[in-house]
């Protein structure tokens, strides 16, 4: 049970309702539970959704790699809701199920895709050690160039922020959905 009750559209003030409608009528098509939490600060919610919309819908960073980085972040922050929301998007974008499954279990996947392996190494090292080593940075730069590395890093940060929101307000899995995670937890 969430620590915040759901918002009812009909009871919102005008400013909040405007942001609610902008999110619902955009590419997301609905106001998901994390945005319902954010709408307690409507102007902030609007700006955060613009940042998310850039990363998700406008950035040139490949969809399956973005979604893979989101799943790695969700696992690193032990955020089952984020995993549950993005797993189908990741698979639809072309991420192999076996790769996602390994991350859910806290194992290093066997990679056939060198770019996915690079996203895994970069995101995992960044989330766990707060840094990336020179060789890894060099590999990422050679493959994705500066704009791509910036965007990959921003994806790690943005979805960490969302995990913080979701975990703070205990926005959990829908009823009947099993916890996707097993194996060791990453903590600081």
């Amino acid at each position: 049970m969430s620590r915040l009750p759901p918002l009812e559209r009909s009871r919102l003030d005008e400013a909040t309702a405007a942001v609610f409608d902008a999110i619902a009528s955009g590419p997301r098509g609905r106001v998901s539970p994390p945005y319902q939490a954010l709408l307690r600060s409507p102007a902030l919610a609007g700006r955060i959704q613009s940042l998310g919309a850039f990363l998700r819908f406008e950035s040139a960073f490949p969809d399956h790699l973005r979604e893979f980085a989101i799943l790695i972040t969700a696992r690193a922050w032990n955020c089952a809701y984020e995993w549950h929301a993005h797993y189908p998007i990741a698979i639809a974008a072309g991420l192999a199920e076996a790769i996602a499954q390994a991350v859910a279990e806290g194992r290093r996947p066997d990679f056939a895709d060198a770019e996915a392996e690079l996203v895994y190494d970069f995101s995992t090292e960044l989330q766990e050690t707060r840094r990336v080593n020179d060789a890894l940075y060099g590999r990422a730069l050679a493959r994705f160039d500066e704009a791509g590395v910036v965007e990959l890093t921003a994806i790690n940060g943005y979805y960490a922020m969302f995990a913080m929101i979701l975990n703070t307000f205990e926005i959990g899995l829908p009823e009947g959905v099993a916890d996707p995670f097993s194996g060791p937890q990453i903590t600081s």
Partner: protein
Amino acid sequence: MTRLTEIETGAMTDEQRRFYDWMAAGPWERLEGPFKVLLHSPRLADAVNQVNQFLRGEGTLSKRIRELVILINARHWETEIEWLSHEPQARKAGLDDAVIAALAQGLEPDFRADDEAAVHAFCRELLETRWVADATFARARDAVGEEGLIEVVCTLGLYAMLSLVLNAFEVPLGPGMSTPISERRGPGGPR
């Protein structure tokens, strides 16, 4: 050897130049820290800046609490440039020197203000365990309000993103910055 390639104004695309000029016209008069990196993706830079502008000037949180959250974040991610640029702002906003010194050393500060203690406990618990207990949540919400707590979480999250950008690109310290927090490591610091 620096990882960051700064983009010369003459080499900027139109989008980059627009963002650069907009930032240069503001109070900083130039691109600071993470925005030098983010400029490689100018629409991302603009979107991040829009969130940051809200958190820095348009929200309900006091500057004192906001800067406390930013210092907790900088200490957690060991982002020296962020710590060093925010330490004076935190002091100016009214955070005690003793609190700042304890945070730098990774020690538990002896807070005189209840709201600082509540927000600090909340942030540390969220960063370290990825979760917050009911009592920690309730105490922080009662201290800053529901809207304020959203701003605390978003500040912690947005500055985590900025820390990752600064750390991944190893953005160097600016002129006049010294005494990196890595030299003041204590319990609760990095592994």
